[in-house]
């Protein structure tokens, strides 16, 4: 299979990140501008965020990787919701 054209590069990166077992995130948003890759979305831990940066750099050694993903809190909830 040929290397993706620039127009399809963000989707190719997104697919690689979904299928890399170190990441396996389906909800990452990928943008490419010039030689910069910007990654967005929610991740579960700072460790996962770091791994995403590492994997993206492996995939695109010639690009600057800007990881703008948000680490989601896993704190206890403050209260409870009565449902009716």
């Amino acid at each position, binding site marked *: 299979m040929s290397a993706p054209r620039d127009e399809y590069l963000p989707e190719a990166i997104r697919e690689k990140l979904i299928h890399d077992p170190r990441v*396996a995130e389906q909800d990452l948003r990928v943008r490419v501008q010039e030689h910069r890759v910007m990654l967005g979305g929610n991740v579960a831990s700072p460790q996962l965020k770091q791994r995403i940066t590492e994997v993206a750099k492996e995939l695109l050694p010639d690009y600057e990787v800007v990881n703008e993903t948000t680490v*989601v809190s896993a704190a*206890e909830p403050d*209260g*409870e*919701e009565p449902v009716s």
Partner: protein
Amino acid sequence: MIRIAAVGDLHYGVGSLDILRPSLQHLPARADILLLAGDLTRCGGPEEVAILANELRGLTIPAVAVLGNHDYHAGREQEVRRVLEDADVRVLEGQAITLDIDGVRIGIAGTKGFGGGFRGAHGSDFGEPEMKAFVGHTKMLSDRLERALGGLEADLRIALLHYSPIEATLEGERLEIYPFLGSYLLAAAVDNAGADLVFHGHAHHGEEKGRTPAGVPVRNVAQPVIRHAYNIYTLDAGRQVQPAAAGGIS
């Protein structure tokens, strides 16, 4: 009053150690039951779910789960299920259980569910075998959910899903992927059989709250949505169970 802690999409894998554990310490004092709405692993590995199972082992309140699409990715879902069951987590797929919580019978029917879309824009089991298989899977699981819910004899009835039964809890997701996020057939199953509350996950960018077309409350407890280790919902045990829908095409 029954207190239900619920969360989905924990996506345990390498590096997940201890994410939930600190918040589980106080859980038995705050909730009567823990529900897990699928996608407990990153890639469906038994070694991934074992990390969660170790955190849940010894939990003094009942834990009930369904699996999600990620938990099927490695084709080892039966092993994933066994790891959870070895830690006393009940795993439901087209089945129901009844738990007695201080004399109140809590019935829980669970299924992963599947996609297809929503009213007016649902896929049909028509055409290629692949399309028939896709929609057929949703129909089969929805039918099983309706039977499981309908067969419950309980004071409160809960449906536990991974895929969404409604569109309202998907708002924030891209419209193009709605057919991969849920199906109205799951809502129809809930409305036909009757329930007090529905939980699902899967939609990380969605909204927490919605209702089925017949008015049953739905909560999307995907962890990135609730942004806590779990959320707690209380149900009045004396309330009337939503009646099954009357009439219509059967």
